[in-house]
């Protein structure tokens, strides 16, 4: 199977995510700019665009419906927080989009990483309770997606009696969207195995990731990597740009530490620690933590020339990573460069590996 690539749609033109104070963000967006981004993604071999959720952004579901009307191929990975919407309405909304986009919708379940922000939305549960509620939420959603009669559910957070929905998930060959779920905690892992198609992990070196992955993939779900990309024609140019970026960010606020004190997300905290504990900013010759103190955990980045990035991706593929969710600085340029310069090398590498595997299989048939 080829590795699948997703990209994060920067909805409000937040070029350097988290580099600016949230008070400076407007929450307004240009639909035209985003349609252009969607079309560029279609041309760059991107499977879907992450539509993130948060108080600084427009609503990802509504925006996806509008963008879906203006595009033909790209899918939308809509982020969703269970505590803010009835699961019945959520399924009704996702199914409504699926019907006009011919199923071009995935969902990315986020259990939430900032208790402060969750209270804006009237959500007061703690970390573990939120996971329990997410479990219930997805159980209800999946029951609606099965379409095998009325939905009845008796949980601690949701009670549903004789639930029905007329709008199905379209197209019929899948009766539900692909479900992605992020998190590094054990709770997240268990929840993903129970309900999701793919678990997102923040990047770490293949060395450090290797041990956990087979356990997860052996339970029938995929593991994907959430990582930023900084690719330039040569490794030298990439490293130079990375350093320049950090110098200009250093003049601004230190985002990471302040955020780490407020978050209750295991994944965010452990990536920040990774950056702090390490002696060097380079976990491998291409995995860079230098931007994390300024831009937060998602800023852990693959840095290098097309060859280095492609071989890093293939290295991850070998340990069982099958999907990537990328971010870039800025997103559009990085995505176009990735599609033009890096992706073809990845596909070549995959073909070679497949060829080698075929030879190896033939060889082993021959020998027995």
């Amino acid at each position, binding site marked *: 199977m080829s590795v699948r690539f997703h990209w994060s749609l920067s909805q*409000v033109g937040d070029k350097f995510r988290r580099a600016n104070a*949230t008070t400076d*963000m*407007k*929450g*307004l*967006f240009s*639909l035209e700019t985003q349609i252009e981004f969607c079309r560029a993604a279609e041309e760059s071999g991107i499977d879907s665009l992450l539509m993130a959720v948060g*108080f*600084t*952004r*427009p*609503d990802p*579901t*509504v*925006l996806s*419906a*509008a963008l*879906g*009307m*203006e595009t033909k191929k790209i899918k939308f990975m809509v982020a969703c927080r269970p*505590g*803010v*919407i*009835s*699961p*019945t*309405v959520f399924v*009704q*909304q996702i*199914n*409504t*989009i699926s*019907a*006009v986009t011919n199923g071009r919708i995935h969902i990315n379940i986020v259990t939430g990483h900032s208790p*402060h922000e969750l*209270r*804006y*939305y*009237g*959500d*007061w549960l703690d970390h573990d309770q939120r996971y329990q509620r997410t479990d219930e939420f997805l159980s*209800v959603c999946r029951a609606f997606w099965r379409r095998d009669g*009325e*939905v009845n559910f008796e949980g601690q957070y*949701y*009670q*549903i*009696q*004789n*639930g*029905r*929905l*007329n*709008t*199905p998930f*379209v197209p019929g060959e899948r009766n539900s969207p692909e479900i992605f779920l992020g998190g590094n905690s054990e709770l997240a892992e268990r929840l993903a195995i129970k309900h999701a198609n793919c678990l997102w992990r923040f990047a770490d070196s293949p060395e450090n990731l290797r041990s956990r992955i087979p356990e997860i993939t052996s339970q029938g779900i995929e593991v994907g990597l959430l990582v930023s990309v900084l690719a330039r024609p040569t490794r030298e140019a990439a490293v130079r740009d990375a350093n320049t970026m950090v110098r200009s960010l250093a003049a601004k606020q230190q985002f990471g530490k302040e955020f780490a004190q407020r978050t209750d997300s295991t994944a965010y905290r452990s990536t920040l620690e990774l950056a702090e504990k390490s002696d060097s900013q380079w976990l491998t010759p291409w995995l860079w933590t230098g931007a994390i103190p300024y831009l937060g955990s998602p800023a852990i980045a693959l840095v290098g020339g097309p060859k280095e990035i492609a071989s890093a991706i293939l290295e991850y593929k070998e340990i069982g990573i099958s999907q990537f969710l990328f971010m870039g600085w800025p997103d559009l340029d990085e995505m176009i460069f990735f599609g033009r310069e890096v992706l073809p090398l990845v596909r070549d590498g995959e073909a070679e590996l497949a060829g080698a595997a075929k030879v190896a299989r033939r060889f082993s048939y021959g020998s027995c």
Partner: protein
Amino acid sequence: MAVAETLHGHSVEVGSKPLRFHWRLPYAGESTGMAMADQATAAAIGLPDPKAQIEFCRHAEECGIDSLLVDFGFAKPDPMLLAAILGQGAKKIKFILAYRSGLFSPAMFVQQLNTLSALIDGRLLLNIVAGYSPEEQRGYGDFLSHDARYERTEEFLAACHAFWNGGAEVNFAGKHYRIEKGKLKTPFVSPDRSSPEIIVGGGSAQAQQLARREGTCWMQLADEPEKIRAGISTVLASSVEAGLRLCMISRPTHQGAVQAARALIGGEHHARKSDGQTAFIEKTDSVSFKAAYQRGDNEWLTRTLWTGAVRVQGPTAISLVGSPAEIADAIMEYKDIGISQFILSGWPKLAEMMFFGREVLPRIRQREAERAAKGDARSRTSVMN
């Protein structure tokens, strides 16, 4: 004419502004009449049909319709997203999104609505209903009783308004919602408003109170003008508008309209029979739906106000039946007592709206112009004296 400034910053001038007419958006497979009870079993209704529905939107624009009602229910696509979809194709019409509380957190709801407003330049109104079917609500995880739902709905709208009114941070401590330092970056985008108009539907005392406190218009099912007049006086005194939800069966002649109405329900005597709707009415806890059903005992409430379809099509099927001139007169009678908005529907869906736009609406506008001219003449006279 008195102009009053309401809580939410809009002014009401009873009787002087042109009437506003909204129409109900038909769903896929709904070209002719379909009883509320039957909608539940029609699979086609659940699927958005952007091509046909955008076409309907454009016709509505040509007919002088202000907004299209996109209603909410388990049998239909989600209204917020349907409006986002149709609003990309139809560039002038507004959408009235029907929702109830108990489905979203207020911040989430405001965020979705504000996002939609930015996409379609504020072409949206809200129609908040407390809900009429406990059975359906339980399918959404909502188990509150009629009165508790009103209490929650009032909190819901108060919290939404706190976000729209643009304070730095929203703090709200209610029985149903608790918000701390709430912030949202995406504002409500509109050429002339910082929050959507809110039509509150429902016939009960709680609905009326909710409309006065959190709404811009109180919408109820039609009844004869005399009965409506008494009910809306407190609402109008609070500078909130009053509106009516009704159906329209208009044909070139009175007789033709009556025939069309009777044909719709399959014959003259059918009207008094309780059939498909009985089970629906027994299960609802809506005060106005039950009352409308009772009105069905009397087939003609006025020469043009007909209840014959109520027991076949559902409580919203109280209809004005008549020639264009008769309908225009009936509408003006409502305007005289202070009604300023109507949400209409009819059968067949498109043809009725086109007939309204072509034959009825111009007559209403003409009558409005005549009254305005008379009013001007009167006020000039009084200045001269």
